[in-house]
């Protein structure tokens, strides 16, 4: 295979307020024609910078390629004068981005932006022809009514639709290389599956190469031929997808793979987690950049950086690759670290749960009315949560899953009475929260705490960590200053933070550490109930595992009841005793965790599970991708709300909303015709 793109010892520097900062060091890899290469790594690894460097987009961000060459079809892009870049950009190589919502100019129509690209690269094409081509492209990427869509503005389309349009735009000039920078990260799993499948098809059809940038090895496994793993600005390993998954040659890759929660993760085992977090570009460690987190670390690692070495057609940059290969799959060092903290005992599964209900929702409905003003023509309500009843038992972890817009977060907020339900009631230990006075309710909050998705937004940036964690104690008037400090320090050590954190500010901490802070605050009052709303969704895989482990530990130690809301199905499965599936405001299925995954009854649940990209290459299959997107909760479909996307919908589904009914022990489903 001839090499389409050859990146040779490229280093990239950025000019910042305090001088140059080297962000990428000595990166080399290549992509052959028709090949899909995945650049994988956590945030901060420099993968996006490399992808932007291919198009020299870093030039506009004060970055420059300080050494090395990037050859596309033999042309060295790194040495090209700026004017000539335009013939490469969009024409030979095209790019799609993480956030389709912000990647389009919001004030021009989709059509205008696509035709602009087409005509930019071929002036001979008339506007009419360009329009025709745009229509074709949209149709090709699976957008219905393309004529109509071309006239619409980016804000009028959904994320999935926009990503399709972005792909159409990128491919409109038939590039030889498509760079896809986290193309599905911002999308729901179901949509992600659709997009990945589309990319796969298009690659073959257009006979192009794809450089895929992702932090999700599951995605990589699904479409990549080869994977290049980056860490702290360097390539540390590259191999074919199968080889990499089968036998990682770098401890980091190994750690990454192991920290992914899979369908098979044993709930009785702690999740694997690489300790620590990725270093910043400004304070890189000497020697091997991974050594502070590495279980294999030796003196040599600390002083000398390992070169990228060939291992029979694949490469790895580690002094201990041979040891790694010799030891087999599981590094004992990780295991030891895991075992040291606590001995996990198998959680009580579905059978024999005590019928001690801690918190109960009774026919809860939450509507957000709009158009209430006197003059509005239409009145209505966004039906975020519709008639949901649910009981969470003391000591259990209840998982709640669903796409964005399914109402799961709203349900959580209503449950904590941060928002009042439109109708229905919430009972906490038998007391109806809605009936309590504000003061009583505040008192009750001691027992119900919450962890948020965004670890950056959920702590006040102007407060010191000590004050943040101590806030619940002050609010509920516990103890004097010294006692409070002691309590806070204890909490910090409980969540694995050093006492030094006490006087520091949130921005000095990484995402994972901040989530620990948030957790410390949540458990400060020893609550009975904890709501974890997407608590790990924003974190990198390695950190995700750390936090999940922490939560499980705390649950056991503090005897917590947890409602775990998430869209990462694997993680939810791992932590939850029972799982509820929500779709468009309705609870469509409840079942014990294992059972739900093994025997999903609702067609939506099935589709969700099928959409999960499994980080095991051999398992790749093209089944069960559901079509379409979740409808607006302001105008839910009649009858069964899922019927518009359901493969098994019948006439009855349109007329009659299905009720939840029990189809197995603790297994409820709201479907007229559940799958076996």
């Amino acid at each position, binding site marked *: 295979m001839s090499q389409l793109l050859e990146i040779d010892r490229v280093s990239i520097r950025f000019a910042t*307020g305090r001088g140059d900062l080297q962000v990428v060091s000595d990166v080399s890899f290549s992509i052959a024609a028709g090949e899909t290469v995945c650049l994988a790594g956590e*945030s901060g690894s420099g993968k996006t910078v490399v992808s932007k460097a291919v198009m020299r987009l870093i030039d506009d961000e004060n970055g420059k390629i300080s050494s090395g060459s990037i050859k596309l079809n033999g042309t060295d892009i790194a040495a090209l004068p700026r004017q000539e870049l335009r013939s490469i950009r969009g024409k030979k190589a095209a790019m799609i981005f993480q*956030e389709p919502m912000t990647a389009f100019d919001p004030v021009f129509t989709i059509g205008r932006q696509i035709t602009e690209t087409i005509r930019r690269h071929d002036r001979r094409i008339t506007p009419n022809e360009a329009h025709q081509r745009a229509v074709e492209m949209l149709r090709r990427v699976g957008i219905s009514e393309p004529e109509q869509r071309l006239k619409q503005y980016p804000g009028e389309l959904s994320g999935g639709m926009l990503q399709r349009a972005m792909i159409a735009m990128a491919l409109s000039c038939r590039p030889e290389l498509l760079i896809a920078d986290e193309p599905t*990260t*911002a999308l729901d799993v179901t949509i992600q599956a659709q997009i990945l499948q589309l990319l796969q098809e298009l690659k073959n059809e257009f006979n192009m190469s794809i450089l895929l940038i992702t932090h999700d090895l599951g995605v990589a496994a699904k479409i990549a031929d080869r994977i290049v793993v980056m860490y702290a600005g360097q390539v540390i390993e590259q191999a074919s997808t199968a080889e990499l998954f089968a036998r990682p040659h770098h401890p980091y890759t190994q750690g990454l793979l192991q920290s992914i929660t899979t369908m098979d993760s044993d709930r009785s085992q702690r999740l694997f987690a690489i300790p620590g977090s990725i270093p910043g570009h400004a304070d890189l460690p000497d020697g091997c950049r991974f050594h502070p987190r590495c279980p294999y670390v030796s003196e040599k690692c600390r002083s000398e950086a390992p070169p990228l070495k060939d291992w029979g057609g694949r490469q790895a940059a580690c002094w201990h690759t041979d040891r790694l290969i010799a030891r087999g799959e599981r590094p004992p060092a990780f295991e030891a670290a895991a075992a040291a903290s606590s001995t996990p005992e198998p959680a009580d599964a579905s059978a024999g749960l005590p019928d001690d209900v801690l918190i109960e929702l009774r026919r809860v409905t939450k509507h957000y009315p709009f158009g209430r003003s006197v003059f509005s023509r239409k009145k209505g309500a966004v039906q975020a949560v519709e008639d949901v009843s649910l009981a969470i038992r003391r000591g259990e972890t209840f998982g709640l899953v669903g796409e*964005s817009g399914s109402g799961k977060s709203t349900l959580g907020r209503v449950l904590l009475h941060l928002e009042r339900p439109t109708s229905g009631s919430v009972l906490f230990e038998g007391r109806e929260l809605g009936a309590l006075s504000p003061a009583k309710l505040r008192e009750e909050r001691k027992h119900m705490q*919450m962890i948020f998705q965004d670890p950056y937004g959920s702590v006040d940036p102007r407060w010191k960590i000590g004050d943040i964690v101590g806030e619940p104690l002050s609010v509920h008037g516990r103890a004097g200053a010294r006692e409070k400090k002691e309590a806070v320090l204890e909490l910090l050590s409980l969540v694995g933070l050093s006492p030094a954190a006490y006087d520091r*500010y949130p921005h*000095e901490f990484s995402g994972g550490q901040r989530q620990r802070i948030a957790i410390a605050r949540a458990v400060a009052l020893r609550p009975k109930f904890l709501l974890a709303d997407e608590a790990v969704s924003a974190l990198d895989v390695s950190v995700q595992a750390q936090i999940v482990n922490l939560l499980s530990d705390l649950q056991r130690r503090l005897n917590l009841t947890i409602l775990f809301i998430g869209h990462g199905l694997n993680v939810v499965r791992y932590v939850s005793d029972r799982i509820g599936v929500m779709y468009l405001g309705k609870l469509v299925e409840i079942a014990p965790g294992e059972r739900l995954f093994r025997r999903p009854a609702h067609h939506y649940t099935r589709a969700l599970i099928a959409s999960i990209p499994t980080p095991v290459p051999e398992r790749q299959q093209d089944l069960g991708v559901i079509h379409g997107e979740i409808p607006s909760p302001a105008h839910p479909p009649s009858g069964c709300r899922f019927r518009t996307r359901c493969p098994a919908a019948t006439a009855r589904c349109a007329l009659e909303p299905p009720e939840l009914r029990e189809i197995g022990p603790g297994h409820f489903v709201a479907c007229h015709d559940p799958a076996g």
Partner: protein
Amino acid sequence: MREAASVKTAWRTKRTPTTLQRTVPKIVVARWMSLTAGAVVLFLIACALVPQWIAPYSPTDMQADRILLPPGSAYWLGTDYFGRDVFSLIVYGARESLFIGFASVLVGGVSGALLGALSGYLGGWVDSVLMRIVDVIMTIPGVLLALAVAAGLGPGLWNIVLAVAIASLPNYARIMRGQILSVKSRPFITASRSIGASELSVFVKHVLPNSLSPLLVMACIGVGTSILTGSGLSFLGLGVLKEIPDWGALLSQGRGYLTVAWWICTFPGMAITLFVLSVNVIGDELRDALDPRKRRE
């Protein structure tokens, strides 16, 4: 889509270096404009506080035998038609001018911010009523409002302060309200509430402190604007006659001499311009320093 957006912000913020790292070198190395502006403002504040240490002459000393002397070694910036030293006048005038600037911002800013904060935080009909009032005030151009107040209350330092303050109030109210609205919806506010903190304590401890930075920027620039409005009132004949006039009055009173003795009004004019310019530069700098998105770079 909410989840997705937050994921993005999270990632973005993560790359932000710490405050200390990003501000200190910036200030030292590349910010000559801000440094100069800061020096100017500091000097003028020093003038306001201890004019007697800086001015070579008494600002009220009128001597008929030294009128209208051009700038020279004895009188650096010349003398005016009373025979007063222009430089000393400017130094002593700083107190009045800066007082107008700072006091009106304080009065207008604090009351405007309070109004906006109440409006934004309480929402509902309070918000509607307060914002309609602000809308109404906004339809009347600030200078006219100031003119009406100053004309009614008569000339007086506090009246000018009040006039300028009222005129600037709607802007502060609006900014504050917008700010409160955006802060109010941030997760850490919900977090604090979910802990069981009372509304008042959430508002005072979390919402308010996090809403203040744009207001600070505006206040900084507002100090300059107030001085300009004050000088406009002087021009329209509503200024204050004081033994030691403020810069606006000096400029306004001296403008008739522009062709005859340019230094009488030019230097006070330059003092105003320089000060307003400096607080604007500082305001811009503050805006950059306080805006998390700008800090990224």
